[in-house]
């Protein structure tokens, strides 16, 4: 069906997709050289909302820069703060109470579910189905309400502090989180009925948008892109951090290398995140959520530190070069969609524009996170 056609370069035209385009979920531009509906060559142009977070990291003190991390990715903000906090804690040698670490993991995983729900809705909207978006937003609203009660914000949480979290969770939160589990599982069944089984949806996903494991490796792809290509790679398991070794979950891996595999990986991840939250709530220890002597001035010893975590979008890394002062010497933020998006240029060659857009949807793009 979707056989790559013999492309004649002299019959091409350039189609400018973006910076404002419904399928790009933000300001992303793709210069596509097209032959009819087939893409001959694509060049992604990013940077429209570049804010130079890395420079801000150099001129702000450690606690001040903590707030910036929530602004990288507006859907999965908690995971990014978590990574940054872990990196600075490692560098400065701050002990985190066990309860705080559990709360962080619960929040990160709830945030991951909400992020995946937005992805699911937006992805199906890319394919032309509008209704699932609103269903996923209904489920997401429960998570946001829960998290708002504790963190005080719905998107940019600023919840994680060096050494712990800003506020303890209460019984009401635990109860609502427990009530959420059966609800979300029921919702997932609904999504599978409405979307996964649908013949139109299947026709558009199965076998489309091939991304091979080798290509993943060359570009450093992570998250659903790598796991959809049969690579069992999840930082939570491969390079355990926080309290993940104590929690039960599986890493979903599909080896179809196509849109369907990447879709199924993320759908299964929602389920695994529910498991993690459930398990973490069971094991939640008592105790403080901030260390007794919360550090005021953070001055990590000079050195080069690296920390990577699995955020909702993939491997997020923070490289911190410290010179022993209150501001970092260099703060590198390695964002996952940056690598995933880079791969698009090569992977979309020979695809029709419809399938290319569907493939872009499976990459789970959040543009502020590419541009930083």
């Amino acid at each position, binding site marked *: 069906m979707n056989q790559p056609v013999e492309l004649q370069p002299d019959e091409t035209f350039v189609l400018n997709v973006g910076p404002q385009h419904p399928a790009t979920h933000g300001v992303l531009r793709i210069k596509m050289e097209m032959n009819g509906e087939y893409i001959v060559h694509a060049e992604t142009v990013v940077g429209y909302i570049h804010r130079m977070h890395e420079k801000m990291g150099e001129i*702000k003190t450690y*606690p*001040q*820069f903590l*707030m*910036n991390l*929530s*602004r990288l990715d507006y859907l999965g903000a908690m995971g990014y703060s978590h990574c940054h906090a872990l990196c600075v804690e490692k560098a400065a040698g701050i002990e985190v109470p066990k309860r705080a670490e559990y709360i962080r993991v619960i929040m990160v995983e709830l945030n991951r579910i909400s992020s995946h729900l937005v992805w699911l809705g937006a992805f199906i909207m890319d394919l032309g189905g509008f*209704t699932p978006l609103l*269903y996923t937003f*209904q489920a997401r*609203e429960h998570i946001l309400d829960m998290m*708002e*009660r*504790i*963190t*005080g*914000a719905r998107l*940019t949480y*600023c919840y994680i502090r060096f050494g712990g979290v*800003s*506020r303890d969770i209460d019984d009401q939160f635990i109860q609502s989180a427990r009530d959420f589990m059966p609800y979300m599982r029921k919702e997932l069944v*609904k999504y599978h*009925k*409405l*979307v996964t*089984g*649908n*013949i*139109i949806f*299947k026709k558009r996903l199965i076998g489309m948008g091939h991304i091979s494991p080798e290509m993943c490796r060359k570009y450093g792809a992570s998250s659903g892109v790598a796991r959809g290509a049969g690579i069992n790679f999840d930082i939570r398991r491969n390079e355990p951090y926080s309290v993940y070794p104590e929690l039960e979950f599986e890493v979903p891996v599909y080896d179809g290398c196509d849109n369907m595999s990447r879709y199924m990986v993320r759908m299964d991840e929602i389920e695994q995140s529910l498991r993690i939250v459930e398990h973490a709530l069971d094991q939640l220890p008592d105790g403080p959520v901030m260390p007794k002597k919360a550090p005021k001035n953070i001055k990590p010893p000079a050195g080069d530190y690296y920390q990577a975590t699995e955020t909702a979008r993939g491997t997020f890394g923070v490289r911190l070069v410290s010179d022993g002062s209150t501001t970092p010497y260099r703060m590198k933020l390695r964002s996952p969609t940056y690598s995933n998006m880079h791969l698009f240029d090569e992977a979309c060659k020979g695809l029709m524009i419809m399938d290319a857009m569907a493939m872009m949807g499976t990459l789970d793009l959040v543009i502020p996170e590419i541009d930083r």
Partner: protein
Amino acid sequence: MINYFREIFSGLWSLFVGMKVTFIEAFSPKVTVSYPYETLKMCDAYRGHIELIENENGDPNCVCCMSCVRACPSGCISLTGEKPEGGKKKVLTSYNLDFTKCSLCSACVEACNFNAIEHSKEYNLASRNKEDFHFDLLARLRERNQ
């Protein structure tokens, strides 16, 4: 040949399953709030812009220690205070918040050791004019007291 027909019929069936889902949803209650006509109450933890807290005399708790100014990542707080004649403590004379720069991160409230600032629960802030977001918190405090 059988597979061909099976694919057609299973495809058709999947479409009917999907339609059943939306049909059931159509008879479920609404989940939205008609925003300008109904509003929601913000929870206790909600972080709006900051407001000064007053003591029992109606004066602000603030002692002008400047720790909120230092803590702010965006530099949106500016305050001045002076020592009155014969007084010991500094008295706040102005407290300005540039809300256009504020990112509602709560760093100032956490830095405050004197219980002088809190988050308001306001979320209906909109204006065509940038100056409307340069809040004079002291004036707002007096306004509330009246």
